């Protein structure tokens, strides 16, 4: 009787077959866990899910004409629906279980957010509609901008960046514009080792030279090393606070003051704002620009590549250089979209340009504002408290079996960091991560941050219940014990996933990116066989 079926109220799920371990089925499917071939392997040319009319009229002169039909697979409608539904069942999502990826903040997306964002007045508007017909939607952007400024204690906000790294770029372009407006040339951005991986990439992309600042033994920025490097060539610093070791930077104000004293600016990566929202206002810490991941702190859905949204709050010093467009409310109650043609009228003639064609991620704005208004000020404070409480619960529940490098330096913030020290010879973080798949959990973030050997970064977020955390902790504890005891079966985990351990090295060295397999059952003719039809 398994732990999940302790009362024995349902039949036990078998993990062995009467025929033994190597039993295979005729179809290749196992129970209702279905294998899924490529659409090219299902499809054929003799069938098609839609009726297409024959092309009408003469071809436009001078345009190159396709001589052969494209080699596309024909699938019936039910085959198409099943193909994608089967693939979706092989996915793992926050709606299926905990997603403890550190630094990613995979938390529950409240259904109220979804309901509001689907209201036709928000969902069915077009960015080129007359502004008088979308005052409600513009009002959402304006209201959200107000709350983001209020929560961060900043002066202005650029709402258009589409994700965290896009927001970082926006902030650095503001810094660049401010330095150019002073007639100065400063080419270096300092990035501490405890920063998010995107920070140095963004600084390099924005044309700055990146220099690293070491972390001290407590996992924080080495303030003295930072001060020693400051000078007239420094444009600013990009700092992640709370940082990727899951720690708050207590010297933040001193860091800001030191950077300001030499004429530089302070960019803060606000990806971990969920740990401090309602508790600390970054503006009070001397920060000049900070992006806020609406898809993290304010619970808009993400994963699988989007959609993100990364508004950037700006200090008074940087606000004049923020991008267009933005919203502004005049005394008559009308909300305007400030664009190039009316920028001067709204006293914003120094903006560096734009980050996006239109207003930003409208669907994320409605969700984030719903989240803020439904939680209220006290609710948002509790978000931070519960996120930190849950992470510390994980940290303290496991520090006797997993080495926690910074556990001595006090409580962690929103994420708990462990290392692979103490595992038996030949056992690694990867073995534990793969073992978690067998246990039915998405693995935590592994091998990041780089400052910790074999790092395992767990971010439980505030939305996991104590019983859910206890299940996760029990699984991770068991895996840590197996890794320390040298349980060789861990080397071949996962054993129960649709695929066993994949050869990541071969996949990276010799990737197969183009399907060149055998055609489907009926056979797709090759383009040469189709001829000039």
């Amino acid at each position: 009787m398994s732990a999940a079926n302790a009362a024995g109220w349902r039949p036990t799920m078998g993990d062995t077959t009467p025929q033994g371990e190597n039993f295979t089925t005729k179809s290749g499917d196992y129970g209702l866990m279905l294998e899924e071939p490529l659409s090219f392997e299902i499809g054929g040319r003799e069938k098609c899910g839609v009726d297409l009319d024959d092309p009408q009229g003469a071809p436009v002169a001078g345009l190159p004409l396709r001589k052969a039909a494209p080699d596309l697979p024909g699938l019936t409608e039910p085959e198409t629906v099943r193909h994608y539904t089967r693939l979706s069942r092989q996915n793992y999502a926050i709606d299926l279980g905990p997603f403890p990826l550190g630094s990613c903040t995979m938390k529950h997306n409240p259904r109220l957010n979804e309901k509001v964002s689907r209201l036709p007045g928000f969902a069915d508007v077009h960015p080129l509609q007359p502004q008088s017909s979308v005052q409600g939607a513009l009002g959402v952007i304006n209201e959200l901008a107000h709350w983001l400024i209020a929560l961060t204690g900043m002066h202005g906000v650029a709402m258009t960046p589409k994700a965290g790294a896009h927001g970082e770029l926006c902030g650095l372009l503001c810094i660049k514009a401010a330095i150019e407006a002073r007639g100065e040339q400063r080419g270096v951005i300092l990035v501490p080792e405890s920063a998010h991986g995107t920070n140095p990439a963004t600084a390099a992309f924005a044309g700055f030279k990146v220099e690293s600042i070491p972390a001290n033994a407590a996992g924080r920025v080495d303030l003295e090393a930072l001060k020693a490097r400051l000078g007239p060539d420094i444009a600013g610093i990009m700092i992640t606070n709370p940082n990727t070791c899951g720690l708050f930077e207590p010297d933040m104000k001193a860091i800001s003051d030191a950077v300001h004293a030499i004429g530089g600016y302070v960019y803060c990566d606000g990806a971990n704002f969920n740990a401090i929202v309602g508790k600390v206002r970054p503006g009070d810490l001397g920060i000049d620009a900070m992006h806020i991941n609406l898809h993290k702190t304010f619970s808009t859905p993400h994963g699988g590549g989007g959609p993100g949204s990364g508004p950037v709050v700006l200090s008074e010093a940087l606000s004049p250089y923020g991008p267009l467009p933005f919203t502004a409310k005049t005394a008559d109650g009308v909300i305007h979209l400030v664009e190039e043609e009316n920028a001067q009228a709204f006293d914003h003639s120094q903006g560096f340009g734009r980050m996006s064609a239109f207003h930003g991620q409208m669907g994320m704005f409605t969700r984030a504002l719903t989240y803020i208004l439904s939680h209220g000020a006290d609710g948002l404070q509790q978000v931070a408290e519960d996120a930190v409480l849950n992470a510390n619960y994980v940290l303290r529940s496991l520090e006797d079996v997993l080495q926690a490098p910074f556990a001595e330096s006090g409580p962690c913030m929103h994420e708990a960091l462990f290392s692979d020290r103490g595992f038996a010879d030949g056992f690694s973080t990867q073995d534990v991560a793969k073992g978690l798949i067998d246990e039915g959990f998405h693995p935590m973030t592994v091998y990041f941050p780089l400052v910790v050997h074999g790092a395992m970064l767990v971010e439980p977020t505030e939305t996991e219940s104590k019983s859910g955390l206890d299940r996760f902790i029990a699984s991770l504890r068991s895996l840590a014990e197996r890794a320390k005891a040298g349980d060789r079966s861990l080397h071949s985990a996962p054993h129960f996933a649709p695929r066993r351990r994949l050869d990541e090295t071969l996949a990276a060295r010799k990737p197969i990116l183009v399907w060149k397999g055998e055609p489907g059952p009926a056979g797709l003719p090759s383009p040469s066989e189709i001829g000039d039809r």
Partner: protein
Amino acid sequence: MTRYFTKDHEWIEVDGDTGTVGITDYAQGQLGDITFVELPAEGASVGKGDAVSVVDSVKAASDVYSPVSGTVDQANAALADEPELVNSDAEKGGWLFRLTLTDPAELDGLMDEAAYKAFVEAL
């Protein structure tokens, strides 16, 4: 020929004013399976401590810093098809690039084999 080591786990073998640079066997072991190596352009002039090459592994992408200043004469073309050479033969066939040293005095700040061995054991 003399071999020197850096704290960032590069080695350089010097013959006259030519140096051959790679990452140490310890470094490749820490990185795991190498999947791609980005090499410096031949003819590029590099400064001591400049990030001149990138080694991608299944775990991370890591910068390789030039142990000394110089001009890049040659990059190891074999690594384009066989990045795994860095794993199997890090301190010989898996070399990354050769350069002509502009300031041999910079070698004085580097470790010899015994000092590097002690450095790694203390990590």
